[in-house]
């Protein structure tokens, strides 16, 4: 092998770096975007209330009564607590998934992208399971206050089917995000590929 051939082979194996012209165009696009943002912000900031605007005075206690407002506050408080607990459970589950999710890689016979899709979908699935009791609690509370008449089974079915849509979305997103860069991934990245995928969920 001649020196020129060796150099050519080395060049072809080395990770590609963006050409200076592409880099320059990217920086320019970001700069133009940032400039437009600043102009819009500058124009929107000095907003003033029109002269002669008389807002009606609303006294909630006068319109609805104290008992009604207390019940409304209690209703909203339950949903707030439910949502807070749901988020906490979600965070806990995501922490566990981030820590132990790589174990699920053995459930895949696909390549890195396919495995990423599986992990992305499983992330959504775990989130769905974690939020299920809180969602059901919210449905129960809404039914209890006659805000909703949706049945539990119907809610679960609806939520489950919408999960299918999320699975498709995350698969497509991961295919686009990872597919373009897959050829640039070093071989050693294969074992760590689950991390960005699980983070993306």
């Amino acid at each position: 092998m001649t020196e020129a051939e060796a150099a050519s082979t080395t060049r072809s194996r080395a990770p590609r770096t963006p050409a200076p012209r592409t880099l320059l165009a990217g920086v320019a696009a970001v700069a133009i975007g940032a400039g437009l943002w600043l102009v819009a912000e500058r124009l929107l900031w000095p907003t003033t209330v029109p002269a002669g605007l008389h807002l009606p005075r609303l006294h909630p206690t006068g319109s609805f009564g104290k008992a009604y407002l207390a019940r409304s506050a209690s209703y909203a408080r339950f949903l707030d607590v439910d949502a807070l607990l749901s988020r906490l459970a979600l965070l806990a589950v995501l922490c566990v998934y981030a820590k132990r999710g790589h174990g699920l890689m053995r459930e895949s016979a696909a390549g890195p992208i396919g495995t990423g899709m599986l992990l992305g979908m499983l992330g959504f699935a775990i989130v769905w399971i974690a939020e299920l009791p809180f969602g059901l609690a919210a449905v129960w509370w809404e039914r209890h206050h006659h805000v909703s008449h949706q049945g539990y089974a119907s809610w679960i079915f609806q939520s489950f089917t919408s999960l299918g849509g999320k699975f498709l979305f995350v698969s497509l997103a991961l295919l686009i995000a990872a597919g373009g860069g897959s050829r640039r991934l070093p071989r050693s990245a294969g074992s760590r590929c689950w991390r960005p995928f699980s983070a993306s969920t």
Partner: protein
Amino acid sequence: MNDRPVHLLVTDDLQRSRLTVLFRLLFALPHLIWLALWGIAAFVAVVLNWFATLIAATSPRALHNFLAAYVRYAIHVSAYLSLAADPFPDFLGRPGYPVDVEIAPPARQNRWTVGFRIVLAIPALLLAGTLTTAGARGYGANYGTGLLGVASFLGWFAALARARMPRGLRDAMAYALSYAAQLDAYLFLLTDRYPNGDPQVAIGELPARDDPIRLDATGAPLERSRLTVFFRLLLALPHIVWLTLWGIAAFFAAIANWFATLIGGRSPEALHRFLAAYVRYQTHVYVYLYLIANPFPGFTGREGSYPVELTIAAPQNQNRWTVGFRIFLAIPALFISSAYGGVLYVVALLGWFTGLFVARMPLGLRNAGALALRYSAQTNGYLYLLTDAYPYSGPVAATPAQAPPQVSPSPLGGVV
């Protein structure tokens, strides 16, 4: 203790008399009437047997023998009616018929399973419904639109034309009858052994075939992940979308392949490779969807990439007549494939519950599903002109897949 208390013995020589085949339904009428009358007595005997076995934990010998003879006779009549056997059976269910059932003597049974026998039998009834037809089973005769019904319908034409029953069809019928016999014996409390749907052990010795399209599931583990089992249908959605898109391309490729094979007498290498990858990928997706295997498959249908492997031989010379009329010739195979499709749905349903509870797929169910998928893949391969070997409808001896031939790398580089 007998390892298989109820098992089918097949000594049929595949020869058929055209005359009796032509009028088989009419010839079977006396048997059907006698079977219905015997069935009334058997129903009373089953109720008595239930009480007796619940108390003594063993079926009384007299009742056991009476019901065993009834089950044997019902299988003889079903085999005769469905053309799985040729001789006119005797009316007493005596042993020695070419498709016979051997039932072990009474043994001790678990009282709990005796008490709840009818409830416990529901999953087996579902599977039997697709292999035979549940509706007709009340009178003992197992026939209808399940696998047995479709195979006997097609077998009628084949036997009439050739005075011989194709072995694949006969074995498919025997497989269905074997399961029906096991279920009857379980329902009638002749044994507490749950019916085994494994085609590998249903009818004794199986032929070792070297078909151009083979499915090997022997190396696939039976362990299942509960999480992926629960969400299996949703997890398969990206594959279903991709399979649909690929299917559109495969449809046009199949048309091109038809013209090319009709002219050249052999499928062009590139088209063969493209369609083989599609059929393999389709099989991988169905294997995953129907819980026959656990890992999430890749998106390219690459050979050797999945634990349940479909091996497709290289292009061979094909008979131009069979190429020209391929779509018509494939119609019987499509009927059988549809019947196996019913089996596959029930396998998936039962496998889903089992996988969720015990994180494992029963071997019998796995093998039943693999048989159905192998037939489906062979049918598709035949339709897409990957081979001119007609799909083999019976179970075959499990042989591990040979080393895959050298294939060109996937255009996606195996990353998906």
